């Protein structure tokens, strides 16, 4: 029983990070109807900003203040980066075929990865250690052991989700976002500046990815330019599982994927973990393409 609870705890703290990344995929899909392949690389850059905040800007380590400052910095830098990517690569393709945009997105993702991997102009391919941003301690509750880092991940995720919910449902910009994802043409007819809202969506999604990057690196303190690929794919699966375009769905999907992965890892099937995430994805797309919380749309001629 203790082992079971400990695994639930492990799964939830992993799933929370997937949820943060999944939200970015789902928001962009909501307004633009395409998968932003570069999202997982923004996540990776978020972790590197957190690293630079300590190693270059000399923010204090092992303190909540320094940690939160690094987190905020990563979110800000990633938000700007998300907008830049959108303006340079995606905006010129606004009315082109999905395939063209998709290939561009793959191109952007490969570009970020390979520039980062290059030892001359990037970080180099070797994994490097991520500093201890938050004071790390273990707390024992009965037979369970929780590290403070896991608590930080959960707390930050909950706060960010609450803020996101507030933005999307209680502000004018959020209302415009929802209108845009419902019907882009109608939205522009009622006076919504679609380009501005799309940029805002990218900023919001990328900021969450940046936060996810720092939190992930805090928990798994070894960062490298390809670290985003797998969590990014898992988060994408989470977004589809929850119903792409659906915010609570993305959060739920993230948690579920985190739990499934953790429970699979504790068994003899552990080495099939990545394959299982994809198998879930394929199963959902076949049997419930709209995801757990999504609504199915019929393509109109």
């Amino acid at each position: 029983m203790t082992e079971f609870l400990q695994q639930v705890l492990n799964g939830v703290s992993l799933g929370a990070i997937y949820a943060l990344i999944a939200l970015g995929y789902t928001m962009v899909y909501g307004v633009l109807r395409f998968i932003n392949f570069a999202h997982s690389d923004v996540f990776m850059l978020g972790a590197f900003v957190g690293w630079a905040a300590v190693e270059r800007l000399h923010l204090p380590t092992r303190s909540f203040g320094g940690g939160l400052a690094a987190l905020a910095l990563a979110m800000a830098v990633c938000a700007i980066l998300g907008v830049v990517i959108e303006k340079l690569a995606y905006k010129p393709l606004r009315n082109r075929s999905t395939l063209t945009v998709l290939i561009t997105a793959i191109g952007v993702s490969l570009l970020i990865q390979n520039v980062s991997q290059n030892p001359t102009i990037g970080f180099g391919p070797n994994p490097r250690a991520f500093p201890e941003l938050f004071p790390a301690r273990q707390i024992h509750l009965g037979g369970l052991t929780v590290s403070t880092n896991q608590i930080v991940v959960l707390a930050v995720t909950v706060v960010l989700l609450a803020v996101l919910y507030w933005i999307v449902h209680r502000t004018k910009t959020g209302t415009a976002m929802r209108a845009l994802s419902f019907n882009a043409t109608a939205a522009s007819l009622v006076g919504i500046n679609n380009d501005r809202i799309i940029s805002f969506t990218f900023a919001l999604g990328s900021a969450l990815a940046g936060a996810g990057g720092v939190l992930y690196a805090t928990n798994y303190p070894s960062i490298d330019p390809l670290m985003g690929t797998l969590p990014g794919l898992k988060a994408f699966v989470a977004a589809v599982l929850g119903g792409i375009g659906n915010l609570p769905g993305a959060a739920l999907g993230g948690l579920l994927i985190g739990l499934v992965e953790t429970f699979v890892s504790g068994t003899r099937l552990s080495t099939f973990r990545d394959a299982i995430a994809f198998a879930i994805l394929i199963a959902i797309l076949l049997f419930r393409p709209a995801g757990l919380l999504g609504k199915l749309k019929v393509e109109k001629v």
Partner: protein
Amino acid sequence: MNRPASGPRSRRSFLTLAACSAVLAGCRGKEGDTGAQAIRLGLFGALSGSEAGLGQYTDMGATLALEEVNAAGGVLGRPLEMVREDNRTTAGESATAVKKLLSRDQVVAVIGDGNSGRCLEAGPLCQAAGLPMVSPAATNPKVTEIGDCIFRVCFTDPFQGAVMARFARETLHLSRVGLLVDASAPYSLGLSSVFRERFAAEGGTVVSEQRFSGGDKDFRAQLTALKSAGIEAVFAPSYYHSGGLILRQARDLGFEGPMLGSDGWEAPELLEVAGRTAEGAYFPVHFSPENTDPLVAGFLGRFRRRFGKPPTGVSALAFDTLQLIADAIRRAGSAEPPAIRAALASTRDFQGVTGRISMDPGRNARKPAVIIGVRDGAFRFLRVVDPGDPGRASS
């Protein structure tokens, strides 16, 4: 030996192919002046890609040795030259790289990758060409089983597994150990199976085995399962980027017992990632930087001066690899591949920085392992372990 001789024949074949690959042809002329006197060695390794660290440290070690051999007047009165080829850590690339080294660069011996999988890919080509290949750090037994042209200067996985089993029993007095295995690395699989066998033979029990795959960063689930199985220690043969995270997460989950690893753990990054959670980690290495032998101290100093950083174990092994090949050429009195091969096979008591090297009949270097422990955030020399005949360990 059936390497094509340079001359009109290969020039004709070159022209035939030039039709298909004009770009390549333009890139570098076949008849380029090669400095007639130089003896050419080849090196293929992961100079870029995800294991670039391994390849670059190998290259640095070999380069230092090359420069020192040449500064001392070369071999047989001729300078040595080393052609480097990058396999980008990608499967399928080592074969092409070695074909280039063999046929285009006409090398007389090859320094192999530090990774066993990529040596298994390139080894058969060297064997077919009758050309010696020496790997600095490929520890999988299958590598030298390819044939009589394939050598290594490091110990093997069965040897290493036996070393750790004996160390766990005799020094740490452990009886219940859990295994955490990287199922995507033959290295980790091989080590753990030998450990399991030898640890049982010495009276201990492997209580539980958990697996992960190469790029994984989350080991909490596996460690939680191990801890629940009531183990005293974890043996996690793996590379340092996994090792650091395993150490940290084990301590995060409140596991306080010894953590045993393998030679892949030897890197400063292990300490950086694990921080103070690295205390109580033990693993075998090929050479100890704390060794006060003037040979080792001199190597450390020269390496630091040349590259501005301390060497890793694989640098020391690559240094020895090139020195050993140079020594073999000297002893053979000839730079012909079959003569070098024969001289390498008969190596006895070659004094390298990683220890005294003798080639056993399986073309594996025989030397004891050094166990390192982490104390106060640094690697500390603990003891030398030799579990006896390495051949016995694998049977």
